[in-house]
């Protein structure tokens, strides 16, 4: 079994209200050296295969077809 993680982040120009809210909240709590916060998602997928290339290929397809919305999101894939 191979565990693959997809890291999904918002594209640079897309507004991130969640990130902003976290930033403000952290400031209020006294963390004052923060220069920016962005929130993203991660999705861990366990695959029944031993073939790393296949796993990567499959998860890339999943990411493009379902897991991300290319209008607003970018992604990277990591295999374990």
């Amino acid at each position: 079994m191979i565990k693959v993680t997809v890291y999904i982040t918002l594209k640079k120009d897309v507004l991130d209200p969640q990130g902003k809210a976290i930033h403000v909240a952290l400031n209020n709590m006294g963390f004052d050296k923060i220069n920016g916060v962005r929130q993203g998602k991660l999705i861990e997928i366990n695959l029944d295969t031993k073939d790393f290339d296949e796993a990567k290929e499959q998860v890339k397809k999943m990411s493009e077809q379902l897991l991300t919305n290319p209008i607003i999101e970018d992604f990277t894939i990591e295999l374990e």
Partner: protein
Amino acid sequence: MDVSLIIFPGANCDKDTSLAIKHITGKHPKHVWYKETTLPKSDLVILPGGFSHGDYLRSGAIAAKAPIIKDLIKKSADGIYVLGICNGFQILTECGLLQGSLIKNNSLKFVSRNVRLRVIRNDTIFTSNFKENEDVNMPIAHHDGNFYIDDNSLKKIEEEGRVAFRYIENNAKHSPYNPNGSLNDIAGVYNDNFKILGLMPHPERAIDKITGGDHGAKIFESMFHSLSQ
């Protein structure tokens, strides 16, 4: 007029929408389960509101991959009319029938409210029974209604007159009139041939004065009027 309603698991405005159609046209629309592969003969297909598949990945994302959507994309190329309400709008953007994306409300909270809207044009089949620039009220109820699109596409949508409804000033205090941070106060958009409409407000909840207004009825009346000719 033949109307079909696509039902996704987790849809929850299907009954209300069905009743609204019945109320206006005297006939219930056909219900089409999301797993089916072909739509029955229809002049108009409606994607009702709700939380398809729980909206667990992104609102509308999983529904957009349903088998029936393939056929919807095909039939819309052939000229069928499509209306997506709330979650239906989100599904239409996720499957590419409408441009843009509906991201989290800028308040980060679900918002349920009666909003004031301007009907931007009355020359489409969805709005023919409104006056031009008529101002109306309709309920909204959503967590992800913040219409986002890149600058160039936004400009193009505006130039082509594809904004269907905009949130406008009302006299409610202590809350901004734009309930979700939508670019250019957009509450609804058309595709490039004005045959597909997506909107966040719920016209099906506004067809009776006693339950908070009947301005939504005009959308159904417009469609009935235009498509029954």
